[in-house]
């Protein structure tokens, strides 16, 4: 029974995630491309809301001892270089790794071709790992730090600022989109 749950649990979580990605329109390559062209703000709306809603819940869960943080290492050089490559790849491919997997299942054949490219990228990374470990991964490595640690601004203040900032930004985007629709 538990063995069953270790499969069905994550399978169900993945399916719910894939379902939401498709209903959020982000399994559509045009929506992602148009986000980077500043013509469609769906990606930012989905991610921004997920971060604020998810973050407040996880903060509460951590404070009540129901979970812990799983923060990734802040290897600043590697993260910055990787993120830059990621941004380039996302514009050319039109997907991020998760939305690509969803897109394949909605009939996007070119997403499948790019997924094979992602396999090639993972192989290239594994082959260059020793060199990266010696020269890149340990440059300016800060460890598993969080913004409240380095700024001494408490979590709740960060989320208040994020929520207000996101709300103002989305309100501005919505009114601009409504105006565009009317004209």
């Amino acid at each position, binding site marked *: 029974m538990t063995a069953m749950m270790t499969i069905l649990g994550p399978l169900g*979580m993945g399916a719910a995630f894939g*379902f939401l990605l*498709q209903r959020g329109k982000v399994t559509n390559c045009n929506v992602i491309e148009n986000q980077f062209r500043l013509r469609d703000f769906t990606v930012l709306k989905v991610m921004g809301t997920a971060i604020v809603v998810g973050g407040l819940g996880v903060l509460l869960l951590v404070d009540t001892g129901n979970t812990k943080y799983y*923060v990734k290492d802040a290897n600043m050089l590697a993260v910055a270089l990787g993120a830059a490559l990621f*941004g380039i790849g*996302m514009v050319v491919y039109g997907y991020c790794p998760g939305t690509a997997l969803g897109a394949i299942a909605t009939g996007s054949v070119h997403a499948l071709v790019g997924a094979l490219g992602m396999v090639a*990228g993972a*192989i290239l990374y*594994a082959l260059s*790992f020793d060199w990266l470990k010696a020269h890149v991964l340990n440059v300016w490595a800060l460890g598993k730090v969080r913004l409240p640690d380095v700024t001494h601004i408490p979590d709740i203040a960060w989320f208040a600022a994020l929520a207000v900032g996101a709300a103002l930004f989305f309100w501005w985007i919505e009114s601009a989109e409504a105006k565009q629709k009317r004209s």
Partner: protein
Amino acid sequence: MTTITESYVRPAPRTARIDWSPYLVGAGIGLLSWIAFAVFGDPLGVTTAYSRVASLFAVPVIGPEAVAQNSYWKSMPLKWDYGVWFLVGIPAGAFIAAVMSGTWRLELVPEVWKERFGPSIAKRFVGAFLGGIVIMYGARLAGGCTSGHGISGGLQLAVSSWLFLAVMFGTGLGISALLFRKP
């Protein structure tokens, strides 16, 4: 007259027929994060498991010996864990959502790409493949993708993840402006 007929005959774009609000979807992903943290102790993420599975594809390319000896795959061996089943769930959920919303469609060359780079299927496949290589290499170097860093790391206020978000969006905007600049 032709414009009236055209707008009548031409089907609505596939995304226009999904009427879920991006804020609702974002909140749903945030809620999914709570479950991922509290129940499974494994935040939403895609590329770590993708890397594990990629080692299978690497066997015919670089040989089973090289894969077994590789220091990266030694630290991240293929195993059917939470992440891999999560990965299998994503296309399943996206497929169900696409069929239910009537937006399942074969797509060889997406609209935005076609407008800019023409209708060539070969060109789009090469672009998607190369983009896929770059995005996965970047994701491994940064230690996560839009899910693992962007959403799960962002909501934990991780320093690494907010650096990832800033650099990824910044580079994406720049590359997009270059690629889609008016001739």
